[in-house]
């Protein structure tokens, strides 16, 4: 007769093997490498927690120290390849296969290792896709996670950076996998229970907090006047006419500029309460002035942001907070919220082609996707109406009768025609295609597909792709806002003029915006210090952002 509980037995064997290194559930940090050798098996699917923000850094280092003669051919299924040790395990032969989502800081090294064949790549996912696969065909056998504190029963407090932890534990623990947590400290009673102890099998005290990257902090001092102009265009040309109340902002100086213009330029336009009230957004410090000025009703967060904890705790009407008063973030829920409950995503990118496809890949760097393709896509499963969604749907498809017409989420790409280092934003052919050829990938790593993009905003104006009726119009609409790039200079001037008459392209002057008004004095905060002052001293910026 078939044994229907082999996985339970396997987990029991892992727990028994690990118990010899533990007192109760507690393992000493010094014993971590031999402990991991005892609980892991060659070929295991392992989730090492870490995304673009928090990192199980102690466990990552320990995993890179195990003997590849004992533990090898691991299949890593994790959100982020971020720490050097995340790739060391492949270099040392401890791990072989990889399915992941984001690799910003290791983009160059992971590209070299993929070219060199040291990593057998499954796929690069969005966060939400990878989480989904944890429950279908990439369920971890072992999860190595990070929390702020634990009690002796294994109850975990994840603090403001809960992020991926509940999802990883859910998939692992309820499918008879083993969960090992690193914690900053072991306490008698955790401030709040984020993960119940019966889902956690071992706990190791790191004696320090897990690493968190301040990824969402943008210094207002670095925002340029061109970025301010694009922000004015977005507010007056998109947020106002569509009435965007529910939205997500990508990372970058263009979106930071929008956030800092709300209490000044947005106020002048009378938009407070009309736009930008409900957000799926990390705790961006640049949103502080808008929050303080009463623009924002509520924000759900993927993760937290270094230095924002006290400010968040003092604004529980705005943020989701726990019984202990601190932020509760959750990446999976926030990604879902950004997909289904937001009417607009706006973000910057590195390259846009003539179909509107965009990518952040250059041939020598593979940064992965993170959450942007999920935020920056139109959810076909959406059924609830909203004004912006219906208006965009009508623009895209005026002929279908309204009751049978899909709405459209606004997916906006914003940027300067020449980006960092004067590199043109618009290209004939994405570098992502060259990369796909080089690595023999079935899919080019496109961040946002052209058919999901609804608008492109540059300092030259807004191209509304919803109003384009054929690929030619679409191409000329893109060329029409591409400025003095090669793409922009090869526009069909007559066709661009006709598109402008139809409102497909709108220049600053068409919207009553004088580019000379795009001045840094419009920013509600012009430095990190201004942000700290605007927060009443509650925002405590990390050292690297302080010029005082």
């Amino acid at each position, binding site marked *: 007769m078939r044994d229907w509980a082999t996985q339970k037995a396997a987990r029991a064997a892992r727990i028994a093997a690990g118990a010899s290194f533990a007192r109760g559930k507690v393992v000493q940090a010094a014993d971590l490498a031999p402990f991991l050798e005892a609980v892991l098996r060659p070929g295991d699917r392992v989730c090492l927690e870490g995304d673009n923000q928090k990192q199980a850094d102690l466990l990552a280092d320990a995993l890179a120290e195990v003997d590849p003669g004992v533990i090898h051919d691991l299949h890593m299924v994790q959100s982020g390849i971020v720490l050097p040790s995340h790739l060391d395990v492949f270099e040392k032969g401890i791990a072989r296969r990889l399915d992941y989502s984001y690799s910003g800081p290791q983009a160059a090294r992971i590209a070299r290792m993929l070219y060199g064949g040291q990593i057998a790549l499954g796929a690069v996912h969005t966060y939400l896709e990878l989480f989904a696969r944890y429950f279908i065909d990439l369920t971890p056998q072992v999860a190595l996670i990070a929390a702020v504190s634990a009690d002796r029963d294994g109850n975990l407090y994840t603090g403001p950076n809960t992020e991926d932890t509940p999802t990883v534990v859910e998939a692992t623990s309820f499918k008879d996998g083993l969960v090992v947590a690193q914690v900053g400290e072991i306490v008698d009673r955790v401030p709040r229970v984020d993960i119940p102890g019966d889902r956690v099998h071992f706990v190791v005290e790191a004696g320090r907090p897990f690493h968190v990257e301040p990824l969402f902090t943008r210094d207002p*001092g670095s925002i340029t006047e061109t970025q301010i102009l694009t922000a004015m265009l977005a507010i007056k040309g998109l947020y106002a006419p569509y009435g965007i109340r529910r939205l997500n902002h990508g990372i970058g100086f263009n979106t930071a500029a929008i956030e800092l213009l709300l*209490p000044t330029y947005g106020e002048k336009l009378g938009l407070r309460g009309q736009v930008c009230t409900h957000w799926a957004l990390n705790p961006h410090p640049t949103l502080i*002035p808008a929050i*303080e*000025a*009463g623009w924002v009703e509520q924000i759900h967060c993927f993760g937290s942001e270094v230095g924002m904890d006290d400010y968040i705790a003092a604004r529980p009407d705005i943020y989701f907070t726990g019984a202990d008063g601190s932020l509760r973030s959750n990446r999976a829920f926030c990604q879902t919220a950004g997909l289904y409950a937001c009417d607009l995503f706006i973000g910057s990118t590195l390259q846009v082609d003539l179909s509107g496809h965009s990518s952040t890949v250059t041939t020598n760097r593979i940064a992965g996707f993170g959450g942007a393709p999920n935020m920056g896509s139109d959810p076909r499963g959406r059924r609830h109406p909203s004004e912006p969604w219906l208006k965009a749907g009508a623009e895209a498809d005026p002929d279908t009768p309204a009751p049978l017409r899909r709405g459209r989420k606004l997916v906006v790409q914003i940027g300067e025609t020449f980006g960092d280092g004067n590199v043109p934003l618009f290209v004939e052919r994405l570098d992502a295609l060259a990369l796909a050829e080089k690595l023999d990938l079935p899919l080019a790593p496109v961040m946002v597909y052209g058919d999901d993009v609804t608008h492109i905003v540059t300092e030259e104006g807004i191209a509304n792709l919803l109003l384009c009726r054929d690929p030619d119009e679409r191409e000329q609409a893109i060329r029409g806002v591409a400025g003095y790039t090669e793409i922009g200079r090869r526009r069909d001037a007559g066709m661009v003029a006709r598109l402008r008459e139809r409102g497909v392209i709108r220049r600053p002057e068409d919207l009553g915006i004088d580019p000379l008004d795009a001045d*840094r*004095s419009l*920013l*509600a*905060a*012009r*430095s990190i210090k*201004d942000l700290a*002052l*605007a*927060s*009443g*001293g509650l925002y405590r910026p990390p*050292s*690297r*952002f*302080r*010029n*005082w």
Partner: protein
Amino acid sequence: MTPAFEPEALSWYEGSARQRIAALVDPGSFREAVGPEERATSPHLALFDLPEQFDDGMIVGQAAFKGTPILVAAQEGRFMGGAVGEVHGAKLVGLLRAAKSLALDVLVLFDTGGVRLQEANAGETAIAEIMRAVVEARLSGSRVVGLIGGRSGCYGGGGLIAGCCSALLVTEQGRIGVTGPEVIETNRGVEEFDARDRALVWRTMGGKHRYLIGGADRYVDDGPEAFRAAVRDVLAAPGRLDLATLDAEQARLERRLARFGAARDATDIWSALGVAEAPAVPGLSTQAFRAVALGRESAHDAR
């Protein structure tokens, strides 16, 4: 509800050299010498295929300050980080010589990372000529006041020139030094000085620290009004430079070295100066900072 915080109209830190001059002197009184229309550009930058600027990043001229004629020079930090080249330097030398012959005071609005690498020999020579001209102007009775609060700080040769001035006014964002953070890190390693740790950079070279150790005479807010008030103050004091002042300056520097030479970090110095909560100093408002700075090292006796 209104925002809890409203920044001032013109930030000195963010302003251009011309905006700073216009807001500092009596309205409309500035008359530029060797202005952009004369196109006195660098003879070297074109060799490196680098863009030139018609004023070479240095604006000089005469203005009125509270009704009194005064000479003004301002470095444009947005052009090559305010770096000093041949023409840039020559314009300042000329202004300082004019100060001597016209018997006028001079305001120098520093914003510089030092000498331009592309014209290093000419730039270094210019620094030496400027220092000599500062001293000669001062010996003749003119006061040369340095204003420091721009993005590029006051580094390299700029730091040397600042050391020759009659008085220095500095903001919190202003930085004064000779060797910059990145150069220290490159030469001595990140353990010696982590140039990316901005809080470390500012507490070692920034305005508050320079003011506390007597490296600057006035600590001012980041705006033209604050600079105007401080300029008026220091111009009220008599200008002098003689052997006695130099002896006093030497004694002051020896005393400072003896007191703080062994300190590992700026906060050690602040504690030694009697500041109760040294780590809190960077976060203090101007008013609170002035209160804790009462026990600071005296500023230049030489000035």
